[in-house]
């Protein structure tokens, strides 16, 4: 690896945040309530960033992200709870199974575009949920309970940083540019020698892989998973975070995922009113800022660190 000043600073920042939270937690400053929401923030960031890869960068409107999350959650939970496997193995297996599900969904639906793809992926999500509802081994509608609570700050942070790092590095390469080219003009991309099928499936597989990780983290923190946890409403929630943050902006997704999760938790005492407020805010913000908070821009350290000689006029910027 080569480290520029910028990279070093980011790395230092990332490590600093980790230890800061770790220390706060150890010192008991972070309450249980805050911890739960910290976990949800992390899980939602992973979900939003991974969905942004599919929707924002590759331009494939997918509404089945909760389905991938469910696959990751169930597979990892089976491994730890029923088969006694260690947590890292469970995470990896959950993520890989979800990626396979992503490929299975990606391959046949490639012929579909836009809204047809959206409804087909929504359908796939519901099929996964329907399947979980009908498999007694994983508890059917009652779901699985008694999953060991293995997710902690360290695992969450590690996985979150890994997700962001992998996706950002992917996007800032010729492979990421190939994805963005598909979004911009699929026919032109194909005649530029880009195997669009391959990259669309790859985007689905990668997005699903990380959604699977999020699912595994979720299952092993909230100790109980049910098919009802993974309805298309959750897919909508994730999509809202992505669009809200800005399609094609990773930092936008991160900020939006954190903001929406925290606001939602803060308004719990308003009962159903909070959902009304959420809905009104959603409409107002979209109408006045349809490109989302960040548009396609990224919040970078470039502002504070002098740029290297060449500008990286890359996909994400």
């Amino acid at each position, binding site marked *: *690896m*080569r480290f520029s000043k910028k990279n070093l600073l980011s790395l230092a920042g990332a490590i600093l945040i980790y230890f800061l939270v770790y220390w706060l937690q150890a010192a008991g400053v972070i309450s249980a309530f805050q911890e739960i929401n910290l976990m949800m923030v992390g899980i939602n960031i992973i979900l939003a960033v991974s969905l942004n890869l599919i929707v924002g960068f590759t331009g494939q409107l997918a509404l089945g992200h909760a389905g991938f999350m469910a696959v990751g959650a169930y597979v990892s939970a089976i491994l730890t709870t029923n088969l006694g496997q260690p947590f890292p193995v469970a995470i990896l297996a959950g993520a890989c199974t979800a990626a396979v599900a992503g490929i299975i969904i990606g391959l046949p639906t490639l012929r579909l575009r836009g809204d047809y793809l959206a409804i087909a992926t929504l359908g796939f999500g519901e099929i996964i949920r329907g399947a979980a509802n009908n498999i007694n081994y994983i508890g059917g509608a009652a779901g699985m309970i008694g999953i060991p609570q293995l997710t902690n700050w360290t695992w969450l942070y590690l996985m979150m940083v890994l997700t962001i*790092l*992998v996706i950002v*590095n*992917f996007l*800032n*390469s*010729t*492979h*990421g*540019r*190939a994805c*963005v*080219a598909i979004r*911009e*003009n699929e*026919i*032109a*991309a*194909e*005649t*530029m*020698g*880009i*195997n*669009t*099928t391959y990259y669309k499936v*790859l985007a689905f597989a990668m997005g699903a892989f990380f959604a699977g990780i999020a699912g595994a983290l979720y299952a092993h923190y909230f100790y109980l998973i049910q098919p009802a946890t993974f309805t298309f409403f959750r897919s909508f929630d994730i999509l809202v975070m992505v669009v809200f943050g800005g399609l094609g902006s990773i930092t936008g997704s991160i900020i939006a995922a954190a903001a929406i999760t925290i606001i939602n938790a803060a308004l719990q005492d308003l009962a159903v009113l909070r959902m009304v407020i959420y809905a009104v805010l959603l409409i107002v913000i979209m109408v006045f800022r349809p490109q989302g908070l960040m548009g*396609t821009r990224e919040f970078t350290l470039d502002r504070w660190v002098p740029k290297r000689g*060449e*500008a990286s*006029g*890359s*996909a994400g910027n």
Partner: protein
Amino acid sequence: MALLETRDLTISFGGLMAVANVDLCLQQGELVGLIGPNGAGKTTIFNLLTGVYRPTRGEIIFNGRSLVGLKPYQITQRGIARTFQNIRLFGNLSVLDNIRIAYHWHSRYGILNAIFRLPSFHQGEAAILARSQELLRIFKLEPYQYEKAKNLPYGEQRRLEIARALAARPKLLLLDEPAAGMNPQETKELMTLINWIRQEFDLTILLIEHDMSLVMGICERIYVLDYGQVIAEGPPEDIRNNERVIEAYLGREVNGVAPQGGKS
């Protein structure tokens, strides 16, 4: 040996023969024009050559190998690149990225290299960047390299599209109405450019165009298409005087260069 050869190339859409029994033959290094009335099947032929459509019947031989059944990206990788009648740039991306994307399939580093930022990633990216900027310099697009492609003036967009096609390093370049929407001055410059890249990149070019000044001016040979069939083939002089072509396409009053009106 011919670089590109089609035999009995035919495609029908729901019973309608859009292209029927077309035999084209392009020698290495030739510059050939494809003209004909609207709906004669010119763009359809391009779509057949680039794999967007699959022929109902017939054969496409490029460099000695059949192209039928290959996907567009595979055909590009075999060495055919094209531009589009309605410009298809990656509008929201920078000019530089438009070119870098076209270098994509030449890049040698894999996904894992990208994710883990291994040395081959940095080498690969550096090479792509250098080549892309070189190409932009050649096309005098360097000043725009960080502009969004859609913000470029029209003529520049056309040039960028040609540059992007060249970045795929083709042996055969297909240009679909490159002069559409250009004024005579711009068209003239375009002619010079086409001639120049042909030499510089050692290209064979097939182009569709309505602007007769361009077609007659630079093409060595011309195919005339009407109702999906080739009705004439030959050097510009022959085509200009071909009765059938005048009947179907050029019209009585015009002859040769851009049509002249009656009372000026």
